[in-house]
């Protein structure tokens, strides 16, 4: 017998009460990260809090001009949503290449950004869409940009007594996601990019956001590079300019999954491809 406990709750308020207890509580959603960490000894919980039965944490809806996704919504639910396909194509594409269909039946979006692996497939799309994370605790809540939520490799700003309730973003008609992996299914990403564009009636880019995954310690926004495209269209000139500034944004590291040089040159290439794909949607 193990020496820790398990509790399952049906509402956010009940979950917040449990999280407010003085002991260490580990939130358990789909469990695809937590169960692995328990079994290889990296995680020793004293209390597992099952949030997978909380209906308020599930589903995708339009609200106040935003698309809002409950934290316990599974990757397959995201991939099957017309609302996501129409308004966040980058996230739809990320869901389609995420792990494999059976893992996607369990894995949730809240778990993905909270696990905050450098290769998390859900993160680049949410970074590019300017996603905001709604975080709750007993007696309070805060909403922060997802770019401020993930602060490093497997690091977020979530406090021990807090729960991720949902993630929201403004609908975007021109977005795309590209993943280069070592093999098709279940590839832990070598490199990913997500692009979100807003265009005026003349198809000039009015807002551009580019996010890379698996390039450095955590998902990152290419804030200098994306500015190059504002006021223009994706063309040879803007791409050449982007190639000059991209070094300010990304500092790829050597790793098992690709050398620094390989990662640097592919980053620029997949960004171009994603930009064109998003632009032409």
């Amino acid at each position, binding site marked *: *017998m*193990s020496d*820790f*406990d*398990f509790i*399952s709750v049906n509402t956010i308020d009940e979950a917040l009460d449990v999280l407010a207890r003085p002991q260490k509580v580990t939130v*358990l959603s789909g*469990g*695809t990260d*937590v*169960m*692995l960490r*328990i*079994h290889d000894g990296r995680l020793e*919980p004293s209390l*597992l809090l*099952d949030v*997978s039965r909380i209906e308020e944490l599930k589903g995708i809806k339009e609200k106040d001009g935003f698309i809002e996704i409950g934290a316990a919504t599974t990757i397959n639910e995201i991939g099957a949503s017309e609302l996501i396909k129409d308004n966040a194509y980058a996230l739809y594409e990320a869901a389609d290449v995420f*792990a*494999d*269909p*059976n*893992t996607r*039946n*369990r894995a949730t979006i809240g778990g993905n950004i909270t696990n905050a692996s450098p290769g998390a497939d859900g993160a680049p799309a949410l970074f590019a869409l300017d996603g905001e994370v709604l975080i709750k605790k007993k007696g309070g809540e805060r909403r922060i940009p997802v770019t401020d939520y993930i602060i490093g490799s497997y690091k977020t700003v979530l406090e021990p007594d807090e729960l991720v309730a949902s993630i929201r973003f403004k609908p975007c008609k021109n977005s795309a996601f590209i993943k280069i992996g070592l093999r*098709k*299914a*279940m590839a832990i990403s070598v490199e990913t990019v997500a692009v979100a564009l807003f265009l005026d009636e003349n198809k000039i880019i009015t807002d551009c956001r580019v996010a890379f995954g698996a390039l450095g310690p955590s998902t990152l926004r290419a804030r200098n590079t994306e500015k190059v495209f504002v006021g223009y269209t994706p063309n040879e000139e803007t791409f050449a300019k982007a190639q000059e500034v991209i070094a300010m944004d990304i500092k790829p590291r050597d790793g098992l999954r690709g050398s620094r040089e390989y990662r640097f040159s592919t980053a620029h290439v997949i960004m171009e491809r994603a930009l064109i794909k998003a632009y032409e949607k």
Partner: protein
Amino acid sequence: MILHLTVNGKNVETQISPEQTLLSVIRGNLKMTGTKIGCMVGECGACTVILNGKAVKSCVVNAAQCEGMEVRTVEGLANGEELHPLQQAFIDHNAVQCGYCTSGFLMTAVAFLEQNPNPSRDEIKKAISGNLCRCTGYIQIEEAIEGYIAERDKPKEVPDNETKENAAEETVEAAAS
């Protein structure tokens, strides 16, 4: 803690600890060994079962989270001595060599075909992309799934020794049901 499950239609009750995986409950507590242990990290699919209608990798599913749920394993496919037609198709199409991966592929395919009864070859490939097979090279497995679909959709033949009237009656019954 006590876990209640419906396993292949039967209610079961078993004592578990909070860190146990669904796989360890099925094999250890319930002594049902048709579900296989492979990688234990969610990569190979040997442990695939159907949980509330969805295929999952039971080695990364927390068992306590499954309280009250319905689990289907490979043991539930056959009808007594008669194999499930998908099992038969795996045999007919040489989709089984060592067989270690087979129960996982079967459960993935059963859940997938319930959601998408008439898939394309590409959709089949995607559906089984989380299951690994070291022996067959996948082609035979894809053919087995397609073979099962073809067999399932074949118009039922009327045995020669039945009269035409009998056959007509049967058609009427089938249409009515």
